[in-house]
């Protein structure tokens, strides 16, 4: 177990971690705004990946170039979800909110299976291929690119939320929607925007992954799990928390798998979550 192998694991973990972080950021944004956990987040990821795939398959657009279109489509999807479902459960009990997004996840997954069959799909010969060697560390080009884009998107999100007027309006709605409304910020539109951005994040992550991952109707489940852990670990409502949590999860998965036993990788991630949450129930940066 040389230093190089460990470094390799760290790099791999960081790369995956950034992707987990972006997926979690979308989830966290939505929760921060309206205190609803989107249990269909994994399915939204799956939809982004499929969108990217179909744009390649039907129009010949490489996943790299179709990203803006995917973002737009998923943002529209987010707005539609808000207006057709979420709007009605905003005031309901937490249980009902969980069940509603849960039902949405089953619905999306099954419709996808009806339309596209459960078969595995892959983008063949993507533009991004190959491997970069930094000394003895190997990094796949598509993976590195994906994670850098995710990091950029994350920073863009952070800048948007903290520095632009709309972003600040979002934060205001998140903190106290009634007060925000009094000040003229329409909370309904803010929520829709939140959904649009949240799913937009997922769109970026998903389409980047199409360069090297296979898509199938159940692909979202595992990623959703990590996203939930990341959001809870980082603290519900905190976007910066997602970044740290995503990276921690990526590293724990990678190093734990390497040094201890890959068969139990997930348990290490879960264990970290449980420990953090017992000793610091609000997560790392959470509000409560």
């Amino acid at each position, binding site marked *: 177990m040389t230093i190089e192998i460990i470094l390799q694991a760290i790099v791999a973990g960081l790369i995956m971690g950034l992707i987990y972080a972006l997926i979690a950021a979308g989830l966290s944004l939505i929760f921060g705004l309206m205190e609803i956990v989107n249990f269909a987040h994994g399915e939204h990821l799956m939809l982004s990946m499929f969108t990217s795939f179909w744009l390649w398959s039907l129009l010949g657009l490489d996943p790299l170039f179709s990203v803006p279109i995917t973002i737009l489509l998923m943002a529209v999807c987010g707005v539609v979800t808000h207006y057709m479902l979420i709007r009605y*459960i905003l005031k309901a009990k937490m249980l009902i909110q969980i069940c509603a997004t849960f039902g949405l996840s089953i619905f999306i997954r099954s419709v996808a299976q009806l339309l596209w069959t459960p078969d595995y799909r892959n983008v063949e010969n993507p533009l991004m291929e190959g491997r970069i060697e930094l000394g003895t560390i190997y990094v796949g080009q598509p993976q590195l690119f994906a994670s850098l884009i995710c990091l950029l998107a994350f920073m863009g999100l952070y800048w948007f939320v903290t520095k632009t007027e709309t972003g600040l309006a979002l934060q205001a709605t998140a903190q106290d929607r009634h007060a925000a409304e009094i000040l003229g910020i329409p909370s309904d539109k803010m929520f829709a925007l939140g959904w649009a951005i949240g799913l937009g994040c997922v769109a970026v992550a998903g389409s980047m992954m199409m360069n090297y991952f296979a898509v199938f109707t159940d692909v979202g489940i595992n990623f959703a799990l990590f996203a*939930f852990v990341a959001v809870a670990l980082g603290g519900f409502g905190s976007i910066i928390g997602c970044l740290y949590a995503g990276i921690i999860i990526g590293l724990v998965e990678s190093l734990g798998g390497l040094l201890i036993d890959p068969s139990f990788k997930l348990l290490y991630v879960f264990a970290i979550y449980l420990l953090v949450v017992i000793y610091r129930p609000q997560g790392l940066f959470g509000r409560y």
Partner: protein
Amino acid sequence: MLDKLSLAKKEPVWKNNNKVLYFLGSTVLLLFCLPFFNVNSFYLHLFIMIFMHSVMAQSWNVIAGFSGQISLGHGLFFGIGAYATSFLFTEYGITPWIGIIFGMFVSGIIAILIGIPMLRLHGHYFAIATLLIAIGFSLVFRRWDLVGAASGLWIPILPTDSWVALQFNSSKVPYYYIFLAFFLVTFLLSWLLSRSKLGYRLRAVRDDPQAASSLCINVSHYKIIAYVISAIMMAPMGSLFAQYILVIDPATVFNIEISIVVLLITVLGGVGNIWGPLLGTVILIPISEYTRIYFGGTGGAVDLILYGLILMLICVFRPNGLISFFHRNVLDRKQKR
């Protein structure tokens, strides 16, 4: 306060007490006599599934409906019950009846172990924690060679039916009665719970933990009690299921779908109300069986689409569950919004 408590206890559960008792009584009688009508085994199976899911949903209702903690990983206790009986039987030949008690015991212990650190977490954190723990159990059992790893435990088919070994191969009828018995007992216990001091305290904890603790109700203490009760109620269903199907593996008994179905049924029927799980089961189980039969064969997952759609519609239009069509729950007047 004591006056109000005794007044509340004397309040009738239903407006028209006698008619409803009569209806209930005759339904129970009918259920007892059902096998004598020469009903074919598919319908017996359907009823067995209904009884089983009712008890499972009822157990989840105790932790979610009565004490307000949403567990997304409740299926874990089902799996423990299933493995407890099967392991004792296949390894040591111990009768499943003792296995059931062992399963309940183990579930209770695990509930305490999970409950003590986790139950102080707020809503979403607790929900996700239960989800992860349940998946964790599934992963561990898939790799644990002592209990068969991913193959699970396959109970040998005995040459003759046996009450001692809880295995009946010539007919489903004994299974039907055993499940019916557990169903009725659980229902009765839930009803007693809801009318007892413990039940009131649990609901106080659910509705307003701060107010409850100001009245000297030890909130975390009661939450753990509720969790343990619900675990103990769930475990026997896993045990009986194992004896019914005779093949259990982690993918089936530790499947996250069990936790989910239990949640769906209770929400559909109405949470916090002892009739909710029953109503939800009676509607959902036949629907899911029949949609799979009529639509599932085409491979289009149409039955699952309906499932998701029903769930979303209930959440939007009838969040109190279908039970709200029938009556406003007299004992749970305060529905916090």
